[in-house]
Every structure is written in structure tokens, then in C-alpha cells.
């Protein structure tokens, strides 16, 4: 075989692998980008405004953490062909099953409300009234599922994922110092002022936005609905890895933009940040507002689906995006009900939105450790996973990550309940 023949075969092999990857890709990228939801965008803008670029290294560390946790759901979904809710019911029985399902439903619904809060706040910058925003969201989300094809839904979701990268041009426009970015990304250090309670709270908020219970349920159900098999696991892992890189890039870019334009300015949320940036650069302010809307939309799409899939799995309803509305009426009914209920709450005058946001943090804290422990136990069950059971190295990494997340998320939940405890 001459060199040209070898090169041709290598090209054919790469081309085939790429086609297979493109067929399997989707769930990992979508879940990871949707992880940067409205709450996440707010956390990053506050982090940037408060501490500049000093915490970039911490965000980079969170990328592999998210990857390792989510990668387990790819294996679990591809091997068992079951969603996360059904897997918990089956493995741990009805008590833990109901606990997980109810906690997920409540957390998802409350988180959905925060997504709508983010979307309405983002479009209010362009003088669009909240009711119009909510109706637009309902129409988009309803249209996405109405085709009865997973592929169509996934393509639209990937389009919104692409839109999430809108922050990247903003980072170039603020002309950051490459040297500063490199230093703050590579050298772990605390910002001026040292390790304070405020910094601790913000670090935990960043962890909370990176790993969320709904992500586990969403990706596993998505893998099952897409029909991935054991042979697709390697592509699912690459998909998840690309997603984790994208999620970190978006987070870093936002921190860079806000760290340069709003450093030292008190900022409560991303919409406020966009408004404050407007006088300096209307383009960047607009990009942040559009990005916030997109983040909320993507988050709401994925979160509502995570709940619908979970209910469908447990109640035995037809629960696939490949099913038409008349074929899976309860699955779609729950999805629509969730959207309508969350959107309506935001429109109620005087609704306790701040209290809801606080509740999300506390309830997510109760579910996250449970969900992570179940995940580790399931991935170590030889009977369920066969040859795809966690290896010793995977266990060392994953148990280490889960232990740290449990400790930090508990402290986060407790500090949300008792803010004076750590002062």
C-alpha cells in the first residue's frame, strides 16, 4: 500500500467516525450549554463584576467536574436504556424513587420560574412587556415539540446552544489582556481581600450552576430517547466533553466581559449588568441581554423536558419526542402544563420571586447529593452495568468529586437558610 492509499483509508475512517459522532452528538452539548441557564449567567456576571478575572481558574476546574459527572449518565442511559427516574425506582425501590421524582419535579418547576424571570428581565431591556415575552416563549417551546421528531427538536435546541456563544464577540470587543487571562486561568489564587464569606458563597453558587440535578435526569433520558447504544458511548463521551468545554468558555467570556466593564460595580443579576453596560457599549449590553434570554429559554426547554421524561418513565406513559402529540398525550400535557404554570407565576403581580429563587437553591441542595450518590451506586452495580461499570480510576475521581460537591452544596444550602451562620 502506498502512502496515498494509506492516507485515503485514513480519511475514509475519519470521515466515517465523524459521521457517526455527528449522529450520536447532541445530548451532551445541549445539557452542558443549557447548564449556563439564566441563573448561571447571573452567577457569572456577579462573579465578574465582584472579582474581575481572578476566579477564571476556578471555572476551568469546574469543566472536568461537570464532564465526569455527566459522562456517567451517558453510560447508564446507553447500557440500561432507561431514564434516570426509572433507573432509581428500579434500583432503589419506591421510597427513593418517589423522593427523587417529587424533589425533581419541585426543583424543576421552581427553576423554570427563575428561567422565566431571566427571560422577562432580558427582554424588558428592549421594552418588551413580560406577558409578551412569556407568550413568545410558550410559542417557541410548544413549536419545538410539535413536530414529533427528536431530531428536529435537537437541531432547534442546538441552534439555541449556538446562540449561547453570542458572548464570545463581546469578549473580543472589550480587548482583554491575554496575559491577564492566561495568568488568572492557570494560576489558582484568591482575589484581593482573600477568602471571605462572600467569596465562599459565590464559589458555591458557581458549583451549583455547574452541576444540577435536572442535568442528570435530562441527559440520561435524552440519551435513551435518541436511541444511543453501548457502541455509541465513546461518541457520547466526546459530545459531553465538547459541551463541558463550551460551558466553561461561555462562563469565562462572561466573567471577562463583566470583569472589565463592571469591575467593582454592585450587580445583582445579569439583566442589571446588561443595563449598566449599555451606556458604555450598547452592542455588548444587547449581546448580554440576548444571551440571557437565550440561556433562560434553553434552560426552560431542557428542564421541562427532564420532568416530563421522568414522569413518563415512572408512570409508563409514552414519553418520547419521536411520538406525536396524540401518541404521547400525557407526556406533552405535562410539558405544556409545566411551561404554562411557570410562566404564569412570573406574571402574577407581587409574586415572591426572590423567595422562589432562594427555595430553588435549598431544594436543589437536597436533591443533588441524593442524585449523585444514586448515580455512583448505579454505576458500580455490576448486574446493571456489566462491562461498563465504573473502573477503579473512575471511582476515585467520581467519588472524590461527589464528596466535595456534597460538602459544598450542603454548606451552600445551610448558608442560604442561615446567612449569619458563617459570618
Amino acid at each position: 500500500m502506498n502512502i496515498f492509499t494509506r492516507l485515503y483509508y485514513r480519511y475514509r475512517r475519519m470521515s466515517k467516525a465523524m459521521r457517526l459522532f455527528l449522529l450520536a452528538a447532541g445530548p451532551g452539548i445541549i445539557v452542558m450549554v443549557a447548564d449556563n441557564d439564566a441563573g448561571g449567567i447571573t452567577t457569572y456576571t456577579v462573579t465578574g463584576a465582584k472579582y474581575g478575572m481572578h476566579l477564571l481558574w476556578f471555572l476551568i476546574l469546574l469543566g472536568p467536574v461537570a464532564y465526569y459527572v455527566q459522562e456517567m449518565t451517558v453510560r447508564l442511559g446507553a447500557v440500561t436504556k432507561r431514564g434516570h427516574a426509572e433507573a432509581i425506582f428500579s434500583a432503589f425501590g419506591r421510597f427513593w424513587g418517589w423522593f427523587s421524582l417529587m424533589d425533581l419535579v419541585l426543583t424543576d418547576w421552581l427553576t423554570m420560574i427563575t428561567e422565566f424571570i431571566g427571560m422577562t428581565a432580558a427582554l424588558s431591556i428592549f421594552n418588551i412587556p413580560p406577558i409578551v415575552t412569556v407568550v413568545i416563549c410558550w410559542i417557541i417551546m410548544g413549536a419545538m415539540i410539535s413536530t414529533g421528531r427528536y431530531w428536529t427538536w435537537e437541531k432547534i435546541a442546538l441552534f439555541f446552544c449556538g446562540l449561547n456563544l453570542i458572548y464570545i464577540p463581546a469578549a473580543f470587543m472589550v480587548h482583554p489582556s491575554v496575559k491577564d487571562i492566561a495568568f488568572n486561568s492557570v494560576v489558582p489564587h484568591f482575589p484581593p481581600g482573600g477568602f471571605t464569606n462572600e467569596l465562599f458563597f459565590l464559589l458555591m453558587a458557581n458549583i451549583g450552576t455547574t452541576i444540577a440535578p435536572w442535568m442528570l435526569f435530562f441527559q440520561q433520558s435524552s440519551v435513551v430517547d435518541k436511541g444511543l447504544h453501548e457502541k455509541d458511548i465513546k461518541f457520547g463521551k466526546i459530545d459531553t466533553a465538547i459541551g463541558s468545554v463550551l460551558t466553561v468558555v461561555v462562563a469565562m467570556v462572561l466573567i471577562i466581559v463583566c470583569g472589565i466593564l463592571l469591575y467593582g460595580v454592585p450587580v445583582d443579576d445579569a439583566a442589571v449588568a446588561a443595563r449598566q453596560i449599555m451606556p458604555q457599549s450598547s452592542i455588548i449590553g444587547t449581546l448580554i441581554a440576548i444571551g440571557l434570554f437565550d440561556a433562560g429559554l434553553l434552560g426552560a426547554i431542557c428542564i421541562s423536558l427532564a420532568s416530563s421524561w421522568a414522569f413518563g418513565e415512572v408512570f409508563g406513559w409514552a414519553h418520547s419526542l419521536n411520538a406525536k402529540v396524540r401518541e404521547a398525550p400525557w407526556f406533552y400535557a405535562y410539558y405544556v402544563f409545566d411551561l404554562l404554570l411557570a410562566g404564569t407565576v412570573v406574571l402574577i403581580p407581587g409574586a415572591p420571586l426572590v423567595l422562589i429563587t432562594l427555595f430553588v437553591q435549598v431544594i436543589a441542595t437536597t436533591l443533588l447529593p441524593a442524585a449523585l450518590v444514586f448515580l455512583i451506586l448505579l454505576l458500580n452495580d455490576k448486574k446493571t452495568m456489566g462491562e461498563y461499570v465504573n473502573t477503579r480510576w473512575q471511582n476515585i475521581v467520581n467519588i472524590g468529586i461527589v464528596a466535595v460537591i456534597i460538602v459544598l452544596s450542603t454548606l451552600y444550602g445551610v448558608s442560604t437558610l442561615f446567612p449569619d451562620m458563617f459570618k
Partner: protein
Amino acid sequence: MIKDYFNSSYAKIREINKKYKTPNIEMSKWVKVSLLLLRLYLFTLIGLSIYKFITLLK
């Protein structure tokens, strides 16, 4: 109609409870300890939340 809906929902929940009555995971010592610790953790956190709720009401 509403009564029928609740009756069928109740029947469905009973069916689910029956179906998932027994955990399928191999109950090794490691699994049992993990689930016990998880229960303790959740009771503590729920206890703290209830305490917070009561103190807020006061």
C-alpha cells in the same frame, strides 16, 4: 369525571408501588451504608428547613 381521574391515578400509583416494591440493586454493605448516610443527611437538612420555616413564622 374528577372522581374517576383520582381513582385511576390512585390505582396507577399503587401499581407503581407494587412494581418497584423491592430494590433491584445488589444490597452490598457499601450500598446499605450509603443509603443510611443519605437518609441521615436528608433528615438533618429537612429538619433544618422546618426549623427555619418555624422561626420565620415566629
